[in-house]
């Protein structure tokens, strides 16, 4: 893909309220919409596969904030998060040939890669204990990080983020906590049970119920975006 076709843009379309038809593909992707004329994520990935550095630059501009937020949520360290973000985009560049659109969306692939690297990084750097302490402090100050973020009035949320948060924060706090520990900290059910002093079966039920509600909620959201 030529450079001229890769129009850089991170602005989003104006809010659309019309419900789309039910004939859309049944995927749970809720990626933000782009301005008309902006290259799609898939177009950028194909350009990166063809070693177009400008495409990587655009993909970075579009998603560095989201990926850094994810990394920060895992490792709770600004400098380490910046370093890891750079490593992850380098891995996106190096591993782009392994991306297949048949297996999912580019953003999903990048998030999966970033989460894995962040959790690996957390363990390898032996920062686990430090992050644990920081998280504990944060948790004491704001028992529910998702709910806290959702009520920060000074932050203007995009439609997508706002709607997704509504789905997540609509869960009972115990389900949110179980999912938070599993997804952002890479904990197994047993580890969550031990950390929260909860029977293993209860943890499993919380995860199953919470994830199902989010999954179903995301399907509903596709009609709202």
């Amino acid at each position, binding site marked *: 893909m030529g450079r001229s076709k890769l129009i850089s843009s991170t602005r989003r379309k104006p809010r659309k309220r019309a419900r789309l038809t039910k004939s859309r593909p049944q995927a749970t*992707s809720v990626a933000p919409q782009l301005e008309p004329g902006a290259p799609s994520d898939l177009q950028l990935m194909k350009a990166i596969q063809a070693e177009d550095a400008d495409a990587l630059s655009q993909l970075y501009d579009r998603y560095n904030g989201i990926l*850094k937020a994810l990394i920060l949520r895992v490792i709770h360290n600004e400098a380490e*998060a910046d370093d890891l*973000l750079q490593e992850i985009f380098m891995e996106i560049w190096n591993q782009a040939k392994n991306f297949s659109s048949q297996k*999912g969306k580019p953003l999903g692939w990048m*998030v999966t890669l970033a989460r894995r690297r962040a959790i690996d990084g957390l363990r390898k750097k032996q920062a686990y204990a430090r992050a644990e302490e920081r998280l504990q402090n944060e948790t004491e100050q704001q028992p529910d990080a998702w709910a806290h973020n959702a009520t920060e009035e000074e932050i203007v949320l995009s439609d997508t*983020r706002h709607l997704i948060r509504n789905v997540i924060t609509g869960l009972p706090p115990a389900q949110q906590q179980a999912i938070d520990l599993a997804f952002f900290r890479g904990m*197994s059910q047993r580890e969550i049970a031990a950390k929260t002093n909860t029977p293993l079966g209860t943890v499993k039920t919380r995860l199953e119920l919470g994830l199902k509600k989010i999954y179903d909620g995301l399907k509903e959201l596709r009609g709202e975006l």
Partner: protein
Amino acid sequence: MNFKEFQNQSRLYVIGALEPEELEQFEKARKKFGKKAEDYIGECYGLHEAFALSLRPAKASAAIKERLMAMVRTRKEA
């Protein structure tokens, strides 16, 4: 394991929350259900995207992108 149970397990699988003994059963069911299973797992990875999009974007240091693009240029020239 029926397909509904497999769907429940798939959502746990994609976030890495299956215990080893569950993972074994899951992989057997995955083989049994074939393409239908793979398609469903693919859909479940949309959860990753959603969790990331639920977070308030964080600002990365400006130097990071410069370093990244310099590394990419070096890699291309090599």
